[in-house]
C-alpha cells in the first residue's frame, strides 16, 4: 500500500488505479429529481413538487439554495411507510389540495423519486383523480415528469422535465407565431439571460424554456416572493407548438424536448452544442440567422472581435496548457472545444452522466492534442484525481467539490458547473456567447497568471506579462 501523506486532505486517493465496478467514490453527478426541480423553477408561477420522502425535497432545495444563494421553494408528498405500501396517491392528492390552498402557485410541476417510481405510482392517473375531485382550481395546472433516481443523472432529470413541458402544453394551432423556441439546456440563469440578449439583438421574438433568469438570480428587493417575475409563462409555453423552429442547446439536456416538439407539432429543430467559446457561439448565431433570416448586427460582430482580440493578445500564455475537467456532458463538450481552440488541451475529462457518445465526442474534439487524453462517462472525481496524480495538469475546471484536489495537487482551479458552494458570480456572469467566453477566458488567464506570479522567485518576478 502507498504511504499516506498527512498534509493532504485527500490522502486516501491512491495513484495506483484499479478498475472499480460496484462503487462510485466522490461522484461527478447526482440524481434525476434535482434536475427536474431546477427546470421546473424556470416556469413562471410554478411550485416544483417532489413525490417521495421528505428528505429528497429538502436535499434538493438545500443544494440549489447553496448554489444560488436564493430562496428555493418546492413541496413534497412526505411519504410514510403507509404510502410506500399502499402507494402515494392519497399523499399526492392531499398535497395538491394543500399547495393550492396555502401557496397558490399557477402551476405544480410534479416529479417522481426512486421511491414512488419503484412502488409504481401512476402520476397522470392521480392528477386526473385530483382534478375530478375538484382539487385543481380553475385556470391552474398540475403536470408531471418521471425521474427515477437510479437512471441517468441530474441532467436526465432536467431533460425529462423540459420534455414534459412540451408533452403537456405545446399545441400546434396553425397560427404563425413568427417566433423561435430556444431550449437553453442546463445552464445558469446568467447564461439564459445572455442568450436572450443575443437573440434580442437580432430582433427576433423567442420563447425560452425553461428560463430561470430572474428567478434564481433576482435582486434584493426587501421582499420574499415565492414566485419571482421570471420564468416562461404558460401562454408562451403553449405557443411553442406554433413557432417557426426550435434551437436546442446541449444534446443531453435539450434534445428530448426538441424531438417532442417536432413529433407533436411539426416544429423543426436545430440541435447544437451549448454556445461556449467562439466556435460554438458562431454556430449558434449562424443557426439562428438561417432559421429566422435575421441579420447579425454589428454589436455581435464587435463582441466576437473583442473575444478574438483577447485570445490573440494572450495566446502565448495559453500554449499547450493541460487541463483536467469534471462536469456535465453538454458543458464539458463546450468547454473542451473552447480550450482546444485556444491551444489549451483537456487531458482528463470525467462526467458522472452515462453515455458513450460523450466519450467519442471528447476524443474527436481533442484529436489534434499533443497529449494522451483520458475521458470517461460514468466516471467520478476519485478517478479524475488518480489520473491527475499520474499525469499532472496546469488547470482544473469543475464544481466546488474539486477544490480539495486543487489544493492537494496545488493546481490552479476555476469553478464551473453545479454545484458551486463557495464562490459567487455564476448566477450573474454568463459563460455562453462571445461575452461569456471573454469572462471565461479572463478567469482562465487570471488563474494561470496568478500562479505564475506566485511561483516566480524574487529575481524572476515580471511586471509586464
Amino acid at each position, binding site marked *: *500500500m502507498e504511504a499516506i501523506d498527512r498534509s493532504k*486532505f*485527500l490522502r*486516501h486517493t*491512491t495513484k495506483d488505479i*484499479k478498475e*472499480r465496478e*460496484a*462503487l*462510485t*467514490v*466522490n*461522484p461527478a*453527478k447526482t*440524481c434525476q*429529481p*434535482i434536475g427536474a426541480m431546477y427546470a421546473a423553477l424556470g416556469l413562471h408561477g410554478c*411550485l416544483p*413538487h417532489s413525490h*417521495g*420522502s*421528505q*428528505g429528497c425535497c*429538502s*436535499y434538493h*432545495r*438545500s443544494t440549489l*439554495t*447553496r448554489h444560488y444563494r*436564493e*430562496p*428555493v*421553494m*418546492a*413541496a*413534497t*408528498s*412526505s*411519504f410514510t*411507510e403507509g404510502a*410506500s405500501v399502499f402507494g402515494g396517491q392519497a399523499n*399526492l392528492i392531499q398535497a395538491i389540495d*394543500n399547495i393550492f390552498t*396555502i*401557496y*397558490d402557485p399557477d402551476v405544480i410541476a410534479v416529479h417522481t423519486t*426512486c*421511491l414512488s417510481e*419503484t412502488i409504481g405510482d401512476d402520476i397522470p392517473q392521480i392528477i386526473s383523480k385530483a382534478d375530478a375531485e375538484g382539487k385543481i382550481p380553475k385556470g391552474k395546472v398540475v403536470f408531471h415528469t418521471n425521474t427515477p433516481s*437510479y*437512471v441517468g443523472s441530474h441532467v436526465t432529470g432536467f431533460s425529462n422535465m423540459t420534455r414534459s413541458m412540451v408533452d403537456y402544453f405545446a399545441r400546434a394551432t396553425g397560427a404563425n407565431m413568427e417566433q423561435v423556441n430556444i431550449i437553453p439546456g442546463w445552464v445558469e440563469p446568467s447564461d439564459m439571460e445572455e442568450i436572450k440578449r443575443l437573440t434580442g439583438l437580432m430582433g427576433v421574438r423567442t420563447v425560452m424554456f425553461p428560463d430561470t433568469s430572474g428567478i434564481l438570480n433576482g435582486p*434584493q428587493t*426587501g*421582499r*420574499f*416572493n*415565492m414566485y*419571482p*417575475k421570471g420564468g416562461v409563462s404558460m401562454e408562451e409555453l403553449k405557443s411553442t407548438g406554433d413557432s417557426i423552429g426550435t434551437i436546442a442547446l446541449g444534446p443531453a439536456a435539450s434534445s428530448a424536448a426538441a424531438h417532442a416538439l417536432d413529433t407533436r407539432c411539426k416544429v423543426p429543430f436545430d440541435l447544437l452544442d451549448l454556445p461556449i467559446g467562439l466556435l460554438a457561439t458562431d454556430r449558434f448565431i449562424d443557426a439562428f440567422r438561417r432559421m429566422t433570416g435575421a441579420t447579425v448586427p454589428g454589436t455581435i460582430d464587435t463582441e466576437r472581435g473583442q473575444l478574438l482580440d483577447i485570445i490573440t493578445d494572450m495566446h502565448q500564455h495559453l500554449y499547450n496548457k493541460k487541463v483536467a475537467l469534471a462536469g456535465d456532458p453538454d458543458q464539458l463538450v463546450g468547454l473542451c472545444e473552447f480550450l482546444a481552440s485556444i491551444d489549451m488541451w483537456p487531458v482528463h475529462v470525467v462526467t458522472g452522466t452515462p453515455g458513450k457518445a460523450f466519450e467519442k465526442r471528447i476524443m474527436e474534439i481533442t484529436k489534434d492534442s499533443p497529449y494522451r487524453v483520458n475521458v470517461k462517462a460514468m466516471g467520478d472525481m476519485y478517478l479524475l484525481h488518480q489520473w491527475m496524480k499520474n499525469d499532472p495538469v496546469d488547470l482544473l475546471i469543475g464544481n466546488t*467539490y474539486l477544490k480539495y484536489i486543487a489544493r492537494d495537487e496545488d493546481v490552479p482551479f476555476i469553478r464551473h458547473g453545479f454545484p458551486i458552494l463557495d464562490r459567487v458570480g455564476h448566477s450573474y456572469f454568463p459563460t455562453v456567447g462571445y461575452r461569456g467566453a471573454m469572462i471565461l477566458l479572463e478567469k482562465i488567464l487570471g488563474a494561470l497568471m496568478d500562479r505564475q506570479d506566485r511561483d516566480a522567485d524574487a529575481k524572476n518576478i515580471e511586471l509586464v506579462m
Partner: protein
Amino acid sequence: MEISLLKERERQVYTKGEKPFEMDCEKKSLAGAISQRACVFCGSRVVLYPIADALHLVHGPIGCAAYTWDIRGSLSSGPQLHRLSFSTDLTETDVIYGGEKKLYAALMELIDLHSPKAAFVYSTCIVGIIGDDVEAVCKRVSAEKGIPVLPVHSEGFKGTKKDGYRAACHALFNLTGRGDLAGITRHSINILGEFNIGGEAWIIKDYYERMGVQVVSVMTGDGRVGEIEKAHGAALNVVQCSGSMTYLAKLMEERYGIPWIRVSYFGIEDVSSALYEVAGHFSDAPSIMERTKAMVKEEVERICPGIREYRRDLAGKRAALYVGGAFKAFSLIKALRHLGMNVILAGSQTGTREDYAVLKELCDEGTVIVDDANPIELSKYVIEKDADLFIGGVKERPIAYKLGIGFCDHNHERKTPLAGFIGMLNFAKEVHGTVMSPVWRLTPRRAVGTKDG
C-alpha cells in the same frame, strides 16, 4: 396576498400570552408542505458521519450520497475518510435484480483499499422497497474482514429525522462494549451529541481535561471507532443535542448502568452549568469542582469585556430563531438575552411537547412559538415582529437576506465554533457582524412577501 395558516397547522403555532398553551408536534409534515425538514437517512447520516476512521457507504442511487457529501464541517484531527463520498450508485438493473452483490463487492473493495476500523452501511428508501438483506451482507463482510460492519436502517420514508437518529444510536450502541477498558478512570465521561463542527468538540474536551475529567469518547465529533468501542467504560454520559443522542444514553444506561445528564455547551450560563454538573457528579473528588470553578472564572473573565462591547450595540434588537432541536433553542434564547436581545419567534423542526412547554416558560409575552414551520409562516412572523436577526439553517438564510434581515447559521453551516465560552464570544461577534451591517441601510424597507401582480 393574505398570509394564512393551513388549518391543520394552527395547533403547531402558538403566541405566548394568547389562549391556553397547547401544541401539536412530533407530527409528520403535511403532504404538500414546503417543510424545512429532512428524512430518516439524513438523521442517521449526520450523526454517524463524523467518525473519521470508519467507512460510510451509502447503499442506494447516487443522490443520497451526493447531497450528504461533506456538507457539514465536521473536523477530524486525523483521518479524513468521512469527508469522502462512497455510494453503491444503484442503477435500474440493481433495482430489478437486487443490490446485495454490488453492496458486498463495494464493501470488500473499500475495506481492502482504506483499511477502516469499522464500516457503516446506510440503507436508503429504495433498499427498503427492493428488500436487500443488508444485515446479512454486513455480517458476511464483517466475518471475512474482521471489522465491525454495521447496517444502519435509515430508509428515508420510515419516519422522521428523529427515527434516523435512533437508527444511528443503534449502530453506535452495537459498537460499544467491544473495547478493552484498561486505563479508564472513575472520573470519566463520554461526550454525546457533539459533532465537532468548527472544532467545537476540541474546545469542550479541553475544558474537561483541565477539570481532571477523562473523556473516553466523543460521539461523534472527531470520533474514532476504537474510542466508541470503549465507551461502556465511562462513568457518565453527558448528552448534548438531546434530540439525537438521548436514546443512546438510555440504551447505555440500561445495558451498562451508566447514568446520563443532558447539557448544552452554548451560552455562558449553559456551558457553566454543564461543567459544574459534571464536576458535581464526581463529588468524591472535590479537586475537580475546585478546578472547574477556577476555570470557569478564568474563561468568563476572558470573554466578558468583548461581550460587553457587542452588547452595547445589540441591546434591544429583535431575534427570530428556527432550529433543528428545541434544546438548542433554549440555549439560544438565554444567550441572546445575554446580548440584550429580545426573542420574537422561537421554533424547531423536531421539538417534543415537553420541549415546547419549557420554551414557553423561557419566552417573553408575545413570542411566537412554532413547530415544523414553512417559509411563508417564518417570513410572516419575522416581518410582523420586525426582526433584526434570524437564526436558522441553510434554507432560511436567503429568505432572511431577501427580506433584509441579518442572519446567523447556528446549524451545520457554521464555520466558527459557537460552543463553550469562546464560542459565546464568537457568537456575539457573528451576530454583531450581521445585525449591525451597513448593508441593511442600503436595502429597501422590509415588506411582506407577496405574489407578483
